[in-house]
């Protein structure tokens, strides 16, 4: 099932709002029979206050406002216990500021005290017990090229980092080429050794853009790497569909056996290819609860997409440049979709310009949010969430007004996940990192 985000109303305050809309209270003045009437009207397609606050009316985020939602609001209006759970109200809590173009935040497995923020300009900053350390954990500013889509782009900690001190970075070097390298923690656990322990490979980038950047360990203990199609526009070298290049791919390597490829890769070309047909998978993540893979692939001029891959089912062609989202790109019509895995969600450029993939929430602070996948758009700073329910994708809701009610975010460059599974939002232009909290 494909969810088209553009069809989901923007959860803005309505003309009738006395306060912020909240669950079962679309006009924001407390839950009452008037809310119930509006939810009922929305359920049958009549005008209602739900038009400006659909998330407040679709109580359980089940993918649509229905009569059961109205009856639940009616129960609440007379003080009865609700029959449907509301999506929790969320807020962003600032964790750290004064960062230099942050574009990723993460944590080492098992370490609840430290967060690591990647700055595009080449530093990995340490946030320890909530405080930004003045000394970078690692300074690669002289090793990398930065600006535009180049820079220090990704970071992943070895699953046994606490014991091994091993971590991995994805950056563009001074020549603009992609480097995947391993570094080690120093004797002082709050800093890293300044030189790489190993460079796995360097990929020549034909253009400055579409460098991908994500790194993450999968549930199989292997390192997954996102690389864009090499840049320019429209993938002029058709790298997405070519198997003899690392460009336009999700790669999968065994950091203990490299260059020997792990079994199960695509084969027949570059041995590290796990998935292909990608344009610029800047952010992807594994659901730590299921092992499923969510890939946010930045689109060309029209559509942004989220690809879904059940655990351990790679070798997929996600379509680029044959398709952009679910639509033909080359050729512009009548394209052959044989063998292509279409995205599970897409949105048009009326809702943004570059998708930023997030995570499936598996933390403890927001019980009502567990299992929801979160993603956003870099240009519009709109934030959405959905649930992957077996074969279906449901409960698409927009969280923008909930998380960013004053529309203060400058440009969401990434989400992040700490050791406990709590989620973070990285705002690049303002140099801020926020934690997503229950309100």
């Amino acid at each position, binding site marked *: 099932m494909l969810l088209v985000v553009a069809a989901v109303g923007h959860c803005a305050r309505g003309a009738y709002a006395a306060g912020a809309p909240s669950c079962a209270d679309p*006009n924001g003045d407390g839950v*009452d*029979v008037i809310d119930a*009437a*509006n939810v*009922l009207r929305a359920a049958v397609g009549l005008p*209602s206050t739900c038009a400006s606050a659909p998330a407040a009316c679709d109580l359980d985020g089940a993918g649509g406002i229905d009569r059961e939602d109205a009856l639940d609001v009616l129960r609440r209006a007379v003080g009865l216990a609700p029959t449907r759970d509301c999506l929790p109200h969320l807020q962003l809590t600032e964790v750290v500021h004064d960062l230099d173009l942050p574009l990723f935040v993460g944590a080492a497995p098992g370490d609840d005290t430290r967060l690591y923020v990647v700055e595009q300009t080449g530093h990995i900053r340490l946030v320890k017990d909530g405080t930004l350390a003045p000394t970078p954990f690692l300074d690669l500013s002289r090793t990398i090229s930065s600006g535009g889509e180049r820079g220090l782009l990704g970071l992943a900690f070895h699953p046994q980092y606490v014991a091994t001190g091993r971590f991995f970075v994805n950056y563009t070097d001074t020549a603009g080429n992609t480097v995947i390298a391993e570094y080690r923690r120093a004797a002082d656990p709050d800093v890293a050794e300044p030189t790489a322990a190993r460079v796995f490979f360097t990929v020549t980038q034909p253009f400055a853009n579409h460098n991908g950047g994500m790194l993450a360990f999968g549930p199989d203990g292997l390192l997954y790497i996102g690389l864009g199609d090499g840049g320019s526009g429209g993938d002029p070298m058709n790298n997405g569909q070519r198997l003899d290049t690392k460009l336009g791919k999700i790669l999968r390597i065994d950091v203990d056996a490299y260059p020997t490829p792990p079994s199960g890769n695509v084969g027949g070309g570059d041995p590290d290819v796990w998935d292909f047909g990608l344009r610029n998978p800047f952010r992807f993540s594994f659901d730590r609860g299921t092992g499923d893979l969510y890939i946010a692939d930045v689109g060309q001029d029209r559509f942004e997409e989220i690809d879904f891959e059940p655990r351990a089912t790679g070798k997929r062609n996600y379509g680029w440049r044959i398709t952009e989202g679910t639509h033909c790109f080359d050729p512009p019509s009548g394209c052959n979709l044989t063998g292509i895995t279409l995205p599970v969600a897409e949105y048009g450029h009326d809702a943004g310009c570059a998708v930023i993939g997030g995570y499936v929430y598996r933390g403890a602070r927001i019980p009502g949010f567990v299992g929801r996948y979160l993603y956003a758009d870099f240009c519009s700073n709109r934030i959405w969430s959905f649930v992957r329910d077996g074969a279906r994708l449901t409960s698409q809701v927009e969280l923008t007004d909930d998380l960013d009610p004053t529309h203060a975010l400058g440009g969401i460059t990434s989400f992040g996940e700490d050791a406990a599974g709590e989620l973070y939002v990285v705002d690049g232009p303002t140099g801020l990192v926020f934690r997503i909290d229950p309100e």
Partner: protein
Amino acid sequence: MRGFGVFTTIALLIAGCGGGGGHGDPNPVQPTSTPAPAVTATPIPTVNLVLQLSSSVGVAAASFSVGYEAGRGSFSGSGAQAQCQLGSSDTLAVNDDDAGTLKVAILPADPTRAQNLALPTTLTCSFDETGGTVTTAGLRIGDKKIGVIDGNGVVVAGDSSRLDVR
């Protein structure tokens, strides 16, 4: 003679209950069960209280509270199970706290057919009079709220005084 016979029977029963026979009684009396005394339940008087609902304007939703003297009883059934019925087919929700307040809210049955409530109508609720007589006139109607459809077609708060409940 008649009185004597009754007395004799009682004496025999007492002997039997003592588990006698150990003293050489040749004819021990077997114990018999005593019938449990019959409990006669006093029926709780239940009355139907009928409220008349009307309005001079179109009402897309309505709610109000019905106050009653808790010492005199409560509506039959608790919470959402309070026994109330609308005279129309509109959708009704009630909540009786059994402590003096029944909350009532009403929505149209199907807004695609009728966007407003079917008024006038009646709300009939049964009341268990455990402590005295209750009449409709003794109920206190409060917290009235009505929704009306505005020029944009959405439901907004209306003048609650236009809803008459008595």
